[in-house]
């Protein structure tokens, strides 16, 4: 019996006995636990990124091929064949910036939804705050996003419309909104997905709807025009513009699509973004509460 042992005992005697059950932990404790495990968070992100392109020849290039093909299709079919480009100057930049920020949302949400199931090896066998897994997906989606962002900026420079306006101030809040909402919904859906695997299919439908219900491949003004033309009530436009993804996309356009004019955006975009962030944080808290309720049985359901 060494002195070290006695020291250990003395230290342990000073620590309080804490319950292990996860349902008894509050959001605050969870947040602290996540921060304590930030090294793990970083590793999980790196692991995701590394493992994703491990045995592929093109590796990280795939993060670009996907949106570039999408860009090509939308630019050609919607812009040139269907004529959407006529009302929108610099249509390619418009689409690509919209697709970039939406890609962040969709990649985070779809990967987060499956994250608990995908990490069942860890969830079942070791204790870590489980919120880490949906959070890590946001991290690896941000890496993809970063790569696409470089391409976007490069494209802007090549096309001679450098994004150097005050609009750049909208960049961070737009990203923040997307991350908050994608992570909140991702946390919620990842927990439900453990019990009901249908959720991951529902998510992909949800994402398709989200893509078309935001001004990504068409302009916000076009929605306004349609509402006017069909004589629909104006509040429909408000509902449309209250969608946080729409707000984030508009903000992103503000930052990178310099060809736009104030009439291309709803009034008080900055205020709308502020509100979206506050509401998003409340949503995040609510989703975390549900998650912590559901996570007690994760290990046995997987």
């Amino acid at each position, binding site marked *: 019996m060494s002195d070290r042992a006695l020291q*250990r005992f003395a230290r342990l005697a000073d620590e309080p006995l804490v319950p292990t059950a996860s349902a008894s932990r509050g959001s605050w404790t969870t947040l602290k636990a996540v921060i304590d495990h930030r090294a793990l968070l970083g590793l999980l992100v790196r692991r995701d990124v590394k493992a994703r392109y491990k045995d592929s020849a093109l590796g990280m290039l795939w993060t670009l091929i996907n949106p570039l093909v999408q860009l090509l299709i939308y630019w050609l079919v919607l812009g040139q064949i269907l004529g959407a480009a006529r009302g929108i100057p610099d249509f390619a930049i418009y689409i690509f910036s919209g697709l970039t920020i939406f890609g962040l949302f969709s990649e985070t949400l779809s990967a987060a939804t499956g994250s608990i199931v995908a990490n069942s090896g860890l969830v079942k066998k070791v204790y870590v705050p489980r919120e880490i897994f949906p959070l890590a997906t946001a991290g690896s989606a941000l890496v993809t996003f970063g790569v696409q962002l470089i391409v976007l900026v490069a494209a802007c420079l090549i096309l001679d419309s450098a994004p150097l306006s005050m609009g750049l101030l909208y960049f961070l809040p737009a990203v923040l909104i997307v991350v908050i909402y994608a992570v909140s919904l991702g946390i919620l859906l990842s927990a439900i997905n453990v019990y009901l695997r249908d959720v991951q299919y529902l998510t992909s439908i949800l994402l398709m709807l989200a893509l078309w219900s935001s001004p990504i491949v068409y302009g916000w003004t076009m929605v306004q025009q349609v509402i006017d033309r069909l004589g629909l009530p104006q509040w429909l436009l408000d509902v449309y513009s209250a969608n946080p993804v729409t707000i984030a996309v508009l903000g992103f356009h503000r930052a990178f699509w310099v060809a736009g004019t104030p009439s291309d955006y709803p009034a008080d975009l900055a205020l709308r973004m502020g509100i979206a962030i506050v509401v998003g944080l409340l949503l995040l808290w609510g989703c975390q509460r549900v998650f912590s309720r559901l996570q007690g049985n994760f290990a046995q359901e997987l």
Partner: protein
Amino acid sequence: MTRITDHSEVMPLGPKIVEVNNVSKTFVLRRDNSLKERIVTLGRSGRAHREKFDALKNITFDVEAGSTIGLIGTNGSGKSTLLKVIGGIIDPTSGSVRRRGRIAALLELGAGFHPDLSGRDNVYLNASILGLSKEETDAEFDSILAFSEIGDFIDTQVKFYSSGMYVRLAFAVAVHTNPDLLLVDEVLAVGDEAFQRKCMDKIRQFQQEGRTIVLVSHSAAQVTEICDRGVVLRAGEIAFVGSATEATKVHREILEEKRKLTLDDPAEEEEPASSKIRSITVRNTEGRVLKNLDGGESVVIEVAVEHSEPTGEWNSSMSIDTPHGQQVYGAGTLRSHTPHPAAPAGVSVIRYEIHELPLAGGQYFVNAEISNGENKQWDIFWQGAMFSVAEDPDQSGTVRARSTITTMAVSPE
């Protein structure tokens, strides 16, 4: 490598480190996992689709810091479940577990490993799960690698590892995270003998450092060798909490019962065996009851058997075990082809006289078994008697012998 000293040092115990309070765990087994199936079976029929299973029932016990607890029980008795509840990986259905200090758990093969990453990356991943920062892992990395003896494979993806290599790496990481409490499920069993020895030595070092270990094992020898306490689970309930040696005894009895249940066909099962072993006594040749032997003397093992009805020819056997469950001597009428003659109802005493039992110092247990003429078992009595043999400072092992050591003349160069 092998240790010659025994583990008789007495450890003062520290404060409570885990408190398991009335813990129950009910699993709901469901077979419908899609939305459609859920909706179809919603309501009353849905209830019927569910099957409840109590994996743990009202488990209460405490673990003191510095102790080493062996968790034993038959397959499916709830050991892994209990370990997961203690580790906080699953929540109990009712009751609570409270705990303090830093914990490391080694619960299943490949736990916390990502198959597509290299061993090196996985060491960092695993260490961060157990709460180590990158710098701390950097500092320990060489020592982890050396302990695991993985060598150059450290840069290979772990999906190409053998089971033993997985465990080596996982155990190496777990013991380098400075835990106060270490939970180990049966994973160590896949390591080779040399590695298991190494693990046991590490666990002994942990004991010296006042760390607490909860270990699941199916090996009675391992439990008695390193644990100071044993907890026996039986169908989700605590069957016994106490010294490791007694725990293995209780466990053996449970196994024996189970074996009988599966061997006997149900018709036979109903009639209880007509004969029972009442007691086992160790005496010297003069008939005095012995607890402490000098070693090398003759002993008499007396087995009292009660027949509830007259019986035909019958058989008996006895054996002597070390606390590790290793048999050092066994004899029986079946082996020697000398069955006991028919006996009336009542108590018969059988006598095994062992001439000059050459045992070295230590503790020994005596077991006995009786069966009928066709060798169908009636009863078995594990550890029915115990005796100690005095230590001889000149030797180790279980056989008592004399040796003379001489240095042969060596011619100088």
